[in-house]
């Protein structure tokens, strides 16, 4: 009797409970099976797994199910670039859409020397917070880089660093995911095609005299670049020069004509080197 109660009964109870629960779970897993498209798993495996969110989906899992369920484009992953887009297209059985390799670009040359600071900002050292102060920026130019390095801290690839008050893009590390672009309250950071070698490094839509007052390196909208461009790749949009990267042939005439040197040949970016 003692033997039964001390050893057999507990063993039997636990064994039966475990067995019953196991069986229940086994039945439940069949009854409640959710059919998941196997392509989701395949696509997820093809993605780089950086979970940067650059595609606009919450992480690589989200993008994989987005491609299968919502028909998202196969070339949204800027980290993986063309090879990954190719793989996803193969899994989905469609033709790959060519992904233009992008990179982040800083549209501002307003270092503390070039563009004076208007106020001493003493709040949270984060551009997104600083952009909420009256006037929109502690800097004299409300379009300029605030310089607290929010982009540096959000970059999932460590491609940004602060140099003389402005972010600097390490092109070897930049994948063009666009996380910095969406977190920059001033839209100073933007994505440009990797092949674009000549870019306007200013973000100000103010008229020339006003830009002059607040910055020595800003675009004053004079239009010299547009007049001198042999292929009409440059237009002036509300007092800011805009270069169409598809038309630009990289001759560099605008660079030499620009009076404030805000058009720069970004020589660090050798065209088409990383696009293969």
């Amino acid at each position, binding site marked *: 009797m003692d033997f039964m109660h001390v050893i057999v*009964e*507990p063993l039997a109870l636990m064994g039966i409970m*475990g067995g019953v*629960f*196991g069986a229940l779970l086994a039945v439940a897993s069949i009854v*409640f099976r959710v059919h998941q498209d196997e392509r989701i798993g395949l696509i997820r495996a093809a993605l780089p797994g950086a979970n940067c969110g650059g595609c606009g989906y919450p992480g690589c899992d989200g993008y994989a199910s987005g491609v299968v369920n919502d028909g998202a484009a196969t070339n949204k992953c800027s980290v993986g670039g063309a090879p990954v887009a190719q793989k996803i297209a193969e899994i989905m059985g469609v033709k790959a859409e060519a992904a233009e390799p992008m990179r982040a670009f800083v549209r501002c040359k307003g270092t503390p020397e070039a563009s004076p600071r208007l106020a001493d900002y003493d709040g949270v050292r*984060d551009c997104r*917070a600083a952009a909420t102060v009256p006037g929109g920026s502690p800097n004299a130019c409300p379009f300029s880089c605030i310089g607290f390095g929010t982009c540096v801290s959000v970059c999932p690839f460590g491609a940004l660093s602060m140099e003389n008050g402005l972010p600097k893009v390490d092109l070897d590390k930049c994948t063009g995911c666009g996380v910095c672009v969406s977190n920059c309250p001033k839209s100073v950071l933007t994505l440009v095609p990797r092949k674009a070698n000549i870019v306007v490094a200013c973000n100000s839509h103010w008229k020339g005299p006003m830009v002059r007052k607040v910055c020595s390196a800003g675009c004053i909208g004079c239009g010299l670049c547009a007049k001198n461009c042999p292929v009409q790749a440059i237009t002036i949009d509300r007092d800011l020069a805009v270069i169409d990267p598809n038309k630009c042939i990289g001759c560099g005439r605008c660079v030499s004509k620009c009076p404030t040197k805000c058009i720069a040949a970004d020589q660090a970016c050798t065209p088409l080197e990383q696009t293969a």
Partner: protein
Amino acid sequence: MTELFLLFLSSIFVHNILLSRFLGCCPFMGVSSKSETARGMGVAVVFVIVLASLMTWLTYNFLLVPLHLEYLYTLSFILVIAALVQFVELALKKLNPTLYKSLGIFLPLITTNCAVLGVAVLNMNEGYGLAESLVNALGSSLGFLLAISLMAGIRERIESNEGIPECLRGLPMALITAGLMSIAFMGFNGIIK
């Protein structure tokens, strides 16, 4: 009725499961850095603790007591809770995908959470009936939700505070905050019972 209501209040405030019983401290530190995830975790805990209390009460009173195997309660409660959470996860995934999306990722985390087991064991030790057990479970888990939401709100605010010495930023400050919150909740002591 009055007693049930008092039990409900006391399990939320006086005997708050996190801040005065110190059960389930792992998610209290681990999942409290954002209010959104903290809320998700809290709601999932409410869901699981209430269900688990019901199941463990049934197991104890209809299985262990008649067989005189009460001493097996730890083992059997763990078994029941683990199986229950797994089952709920499977069922939710199929029957209510929206709820699964908001609770789903937290459910496996709760399986082995000591707050869940703690409430079940408390119900047993205090000799609560079914109604009392459920009320105690609901109150305790709402107390968990309250405490973790408060903690997340505070942590979100102190995270970007430049005034905190560097050596105290992050987890050290969170632990100090938790201690202060606990002392504050001790102030409820003696209000009921």
